[in-house]
């Protein structure tokens, strides 16, 4: 009986953003970004946390940068566009609806069409084939709208910024659902921490 099972299991949903959730293991990042063997210039948004720099790694929150909140007061609808991801970021977005996060309780919903979307999540390293798709998806979105690049591949991609203006980005390979939730709260103007 699913009802009894759910009652027995209790509430799994995080109290975030009211308080930080210590049950969520944070991602590993190096203690500093010098000596990266893969890139000359390295910072948190470009860091894949691969550990090949040989630096000590410690757990910290993904970085979430949002330039300006949307002037919207109600629910936010999100269109997700994969422009060349490995698939990990896609699943992190899907897990926003898992009981532990339940982003619906905060008024965030995904939509299958950009015409109904306020926010465009872009994931992946942009491929040639997806450039026109990205351009069209953005053009179909009604104003006011915002584009957030999720994860290292999208955050460091200058090609994406050449096509659409970025309102925000989230670090991580992949960025954790809790960090993606933080970006939504910031874009909705509801981040008080």
């Amino acid at each position, binding site marked *: 009986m699913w009802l009894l099972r759910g009652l027995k299991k209790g509430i799994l949903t995080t109290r975030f953003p009211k308080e930080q959730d210590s049950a969520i293991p944070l991602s590993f990042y190096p203690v500093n970004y010098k000596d990266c063997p893969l890139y000359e210039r390295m910072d948190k948004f470009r860091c894949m946390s691969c550990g090949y720099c040989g630096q000590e790694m410690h757990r910290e929150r993904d970085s979430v940068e949002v330039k300006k909140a949307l002037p919207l007061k109600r629910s936010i609808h999100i269109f997700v566009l994969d422009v060349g991801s490995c698939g990990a970021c896609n699943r992190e977005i899907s897990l926003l609806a898992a*009981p532990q996060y339940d982003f619906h309780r905060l008024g965030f919903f995904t939509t299958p069409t950009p015409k109904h979307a306020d926010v465009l999540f872009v994931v992946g390293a942009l491929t040639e*084939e997806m450039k026109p798709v990205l351009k069209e998806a953005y053009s179909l979105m009604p104003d006011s709208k915002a584009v957030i690049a999720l994860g290292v591949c999208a955050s460091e991609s200058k090609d994406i910024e050449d096509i659409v203006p970025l309102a925000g980005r989230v670090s991580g390979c992949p960025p954790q659902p809790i960090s993606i939730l933080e970006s939504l709260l910031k874009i909705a103007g509801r981040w008080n921490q």
Partner: protein
Amino acid sequence: MVCLGVVSVNLKFEDNLPSEDFALTAMFPYGDEVIAVWTDYSTGKHVFSKFTRMPDELTANRPLLHAFRNDYRIDEKSKCAKLLNYGPAAGGIGEAGAFKIATCGERIEALVPSRGYKAGRAFKHKIVKNTVQMASPYISRLSGQFSASYYTLFTNLAFEDIDERFEQLCFAATELERIHNHIWVIHKLANDAAQKVASAHFAALTEELLRLNSRVFGNRYLIDFARLYQFGEHDDFTKSIKTLKTEFLSLIDELLRSRIVIDRLHTTGTLTSEQIKEHDIMGIPARAAGVERDARKFSVLQSYHKEHVPKLGEDGDALARLLVRVEEVKESFELLENFEFPKSSAIPNTPAEGTRYGMIEAPPGDIFMVLDIVSGRINWLGIRPPSLVMLHAFSVGIRGNVFTDFPFALDSFGLYFADADIYGGWS
């Protein structure tokens, strides 16, 4: 696909086509020629053929060639049927990939995958000509859902100094990967069958598994697991595995009591054993149709799977694929219940030399990889990802089903376009 050009790899080629015991595993361009790779799943033997021109016998009798050449066509359709393109930004697929579908309105007469939207991802040129050490982080990121499998296969081929501690970690990581992928497929199938509460429970279970991966191996998707392992926490691993296993068994028992789930999956996306052999399909769909194609017995981790007995189904439909996954999850949990972590990780560092090839059983099916290493650098890399074959299998199994069966059939294969678009040979 990128041609090899002047690169040469050291492989022994057979003069004749192999017997019917061999399944076509991969095909790579090689200058003006083509290399075909064949596998006998009963012995684990791989053989190679080289052609200047593809023999007519192969072109006619091996429909999987269309997947390698990406030259699918819908030639036959009824008079009223229209062709519709679905993707690459369709919410129902969830990734940058598409399908061409021939339909009169309800029944799917034919369907072919339209892939390549992710083929231009930048990682490939960061792998070839790079040292095997510096190529490793990119190998781990070729396919996020099967990262541990790709990394394990690559390192076992590319390095000489693989020690037992490292192999133990590879084994644990690949089994954890199998569990979270299979449970995610079950979550999606429950969601497709409108069992939203059940689907939420499986999503919650997946989230707990990913958190366990992060605690122990430093990354939710086991990306760079060997390097980040040293920073993780391992003390509660066995207890966590037992708790998650109990939860899984209880959830799956409840889910399979639903007639709605059974009815929606039964006879959906069916592949017969004859179709499996005709189309050279392997992995979960093959085993679900009763065809024993499982690379664990001869993979790079074969010493850890000596007692493994492939889980077989009968009907070859989406339900059979679900049930095979359930049995595999149970086995993986049992294997991990008594796992003892090594005290350190011992990451390999000495590159191998020459041409090496091998297979590993990723969650949906096997990955085949061939590497040529010269002076510690990757001279040539060829990969046949499992999702390429799964896409082909889906295109065969979906024929004759109605539109509402589409998500069940698609999700039951556990395929990813990111994985399928890795396919090729790069120099």
